[in-house]
C-alpha cells in the first residue's frame, strides 16, 4: 500500500494528509508530522499561556511552555504582564526553575545574572570584566527575550512565537463570546484561577483529545460504565429523592443521541468551535439561589437571563486551550511527543459568586478531569486504542464524513451543524491543513 509519507518533513504532502472528509493515519502516528506541527502550528499560532489571576501582584511569575519552548508569564513592577522566554541571556540556563512564585528579580542559578521581571538586565557579577569587549549591556540581546507577541482577553493570556499574524481578538473571532460568557457569569465580571492544577498524561496524540471534546457521538458509548452506572446506583440508593450535584454532573454523559444532536456544533475559522448553545449537558444543574440574586443585583434580570441562556459545553481555542464556561473549568493541551500529551485542568472562581459555585466546579474537575476520575479513563482508553490501532496498515484513512455537505453557514465565518455531525473534526483539519501548508498564524 502506498504511503504518503517518506522520510523527513520535506516529503510530507500536507494536501493529501488532510482531505475535506478524511485524514491520513500518519497525522497521529508520524513523528515527522508531529515535529512539523510544533514548528508550524504550536510555535506560530496564538497559544494559551496562563490567566492574569496567576500573576496578580508585581513580582509574581508562572512558568509554562509554548510548544517545545519554556516561557515565563510575569507581572513587573510597572503593573504590566510580560511573556518571556525562560532562558538566561548569558549561557541559556532556564531562569525560572519552579512553576510559580514571587521575586523582586529573576536571578540565574548559574552565574548570577539578574534581570527585572520585564526581562531587562539588572546586573552581572564583576561586570567590569566586560569593559572593552564586544558585549554591550544596552544591546537588547543582553536582556531576557520577550516572546514576539502576547495579549490578553478578559484575563486569558495568549502568546504567539510568530511576529506576524492576526491579532488576538480577530483570531479568537466567534469563540471570544465563550470567554465572555464564562466571565459574565461572575457577578463582578471577573474570573480567578484557584484550587490547584491537575496534570493528566495521555499515551496518545494531542489531536485525539481536542477532537473528542466536541465529538458528540461518543459519550453514550464510551461513558456507559460511569454515567449509566451512576444513574442506576443513584436511583437504587436515593429512590425519587433529588440527585446530589455529583450525580447531576455524571448522569448527562449518557443522554440520548437526540439530546446531543439538539446541543449542536458551532465552528469558526482557525479550528475553533464549541458544542452546545441553548442547551448542553450542563443545563440542568440545580440553581444556587444566592448566586442568582447576586447576578441580578449586578446585571439586572434581563441581562442575567441572556447570560444564562448561553449554555455551551466545550469551547476549543485550537489548538491549545479548551473551556467549559457553564462550569468554569479549563483544560490546557501540552503536546509532548507524537504519542504523548499532558492535559492540565484548571478551575475558576466567579468573583462575587457564593462559595457553592466554586465547590461545584471543583467537584466537576474531580469527577471528570482528574487522572483517577470516573469518566475520563474510558476516553483515554479510546485514544490509546486509536493510537495503537492506527499503526495498522489495514487502512490509511480516518473517516470524518458524517453530515459532510450539510453544514449551515450562519455568516461571518460561523458554521452550524447538528451535534452528531463530524463538523468539529473537519473544521479543525481545515485549520490544520492551512497552518501546516503555509506555516500561517
Amino acid at each position, binding site marked *: 500500500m502506498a504511503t504518503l509519507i517518506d522520510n523527513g518533513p520535506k516529503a510530507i504532502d500536507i494536501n493529501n494528509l488532510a482531505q475535506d472528509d478524511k485524514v491520513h493515519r500518519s497525522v497521529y502516528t508520524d513523528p515527522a508530522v508531529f515535529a512539523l506541527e510544533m514548528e508550524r502550528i504550536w510555535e506560530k499560532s496564538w497559544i494559551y499561556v496562563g490567566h492574569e489571576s496567576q500573576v496578580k501582584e508585581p513580582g509574581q511569575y508562572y512558568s509554562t511552555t509554548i510548544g517545545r519552548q519554556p516561557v515565563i508569564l510575569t507581572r513587573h513592577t510597572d503593573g504590566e504582564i510580560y511573556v518571556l522566554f525562560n532562558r538566561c541571556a548569558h549561557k541559556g540556563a532556564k531562569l525560572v526553575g519552579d512553576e510559580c512564585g514571587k521575586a523582586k528579580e529573576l536571578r540565574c542559578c548559574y552565574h548570577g545574572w539578574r534581570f527585572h521581571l520585564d526581562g531587562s538586565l539588572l546586573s552581572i557579577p564583576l561586570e567590569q570584566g566586560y569593559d572593552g569587549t564586544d558585549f554591550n549591556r544596552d544591546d537588547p540581546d543582553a536582556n531576557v527575550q520577550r516572546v514576539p507577541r502576547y495579549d490578553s482577553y478578559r484575563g486569558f493570556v495568549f502568546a504567539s512565537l510568530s511576529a506576524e499574524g492576526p491579532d488576538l481578538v480577530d483570531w479568537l473571532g466567534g469563540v471570544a463570546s465563550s470567554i465572555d460568557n464564562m466571565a459574565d457569569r461572575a457577578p463582578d465580571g471577573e474570573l480567578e484561577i484557584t484550587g490547584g492544577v491537575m496534570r*493528566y498524561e495521555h499515551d496518545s496524540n494531542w489531536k485525539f483529545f481536542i477532537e473528542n471534546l466536541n465529538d458528540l457521538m461518543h459519550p453514550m458509548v464510551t461513558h456507559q460504565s460511569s454515567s449509566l*452506572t451512576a444513574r442506576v446506583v443513584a436511583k437504587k440508593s436515593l429512590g425519587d429523592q433529588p440527585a446530589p450535584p455529583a450525580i447531576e454532573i455524571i448522569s448527562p454523559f449518557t443522554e440520548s443521541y437526540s439530546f446531543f444532536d439538539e446541543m449542536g456544533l458551532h465552528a469558526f475559522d482557525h479550528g475553533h468551535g464549541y458544542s452546545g448553545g441553548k442547551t448542553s449537558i450542563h443545563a440542568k444543574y440545580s440553581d444556587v439561589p444566592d448566586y442568582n440574586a447576586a447576578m441580578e443585583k449586578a446585571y439586572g434580570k434581563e441581562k442575567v437571563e441572556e447570560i444564562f441562556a448561553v449554555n455551551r459545553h466545550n469551547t476549543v481555542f485550537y489548538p491549545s486551550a479548551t473551556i467549559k464556561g457553564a462550569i468554569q473549568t479549563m483544560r490546557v493541551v501540552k503536546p509532548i511527543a507524537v504519542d504523548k500529551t*499532558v492535559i492540565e485542568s484548571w478551575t475558576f472562581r466567579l468573583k462575587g459568586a457564593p462559595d457553592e459555585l466554586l465547590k461545584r466546579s*471543583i467537584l466537576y*474537575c474531580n*469527577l471528570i478531569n482528574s*487522572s483517577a476520575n*470516573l469518566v475520563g479513563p474510558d476516553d483515554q482508553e479510546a485514544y490509546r486504542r486509536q493510537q495503537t490501532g492506527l499503526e495498522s496498515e489495514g487502512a490509511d484513512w480516518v473517516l470524518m464524513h458524517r453530515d459532510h455537505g450539510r453544514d449551515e453557514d450562519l455568516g461571518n465565518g460561523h458554521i452550524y451543524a447538528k451535534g452528531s455531525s463530524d463538523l468539529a473534526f473537519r473544521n479543525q483539519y481545515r485549520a490544520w491543513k492551512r497552518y501546516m501548508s503555509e506555516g500561517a498564524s
Partner: protein
Amino acid sequence: MTTDDLLFYHRVSQFLFLEARLLDEQKWEEWNELFTEDGVYWAPASWEQPDPFHHVSLIFEDKLLRDVRIARFKSPAAYSLQPFPRTSHMVSNIMIDNREGDLVTVSSQFQMTEFRRDKPIRYNGAYTHELSESDSGFKMRQKKAILVNCDGTHESSSVYF
C-alpha cells in the same frame, strides 16, 4: 507503654492490613463496609491541601460515589479496566497520632503497585486513617491517601490507593 497499648496498636495495625488486603483481593463491597455511613475516601492533589472542597483532588468520594466506582469496576463497558488491574498494597510505619475516646487517628506509609495490561505502575505515599471504634471494631470516618507525587503528572488510574 502498657500491654493494653500494645494490644490496641496491634488491633489498629491489623485493621489497616485488612483494609489493604480487601482492596488487593478485589472485595470492594466488604472494603466499602469498613467506612462509617458518612465516611469519605480522599486522595488530595496537593501536598498541603487543607480541604477537598476548594482545591481539586484526584479522588474525593462519599459512600454514593464509592458505590458508583465499585459498580463501574464490574461494568462490561469499563473499557479502560480490561483486563482488571491487579494491585499490591504495602502498609508500614504505622503510628497512632491521636486517641480520644472512640476516635483514633493513625498515620502510615504505603506503596501500591498496580499492574494493568502491560506494565506495573508504582504509587507511594502516606495514609491517614481517621477511625472510630465500637464493639464491632473499627470503622473509617476518613481514609486519606496522599501520594508523594500528588501534584505531579499522572497516568489514568481507577482503583483505590
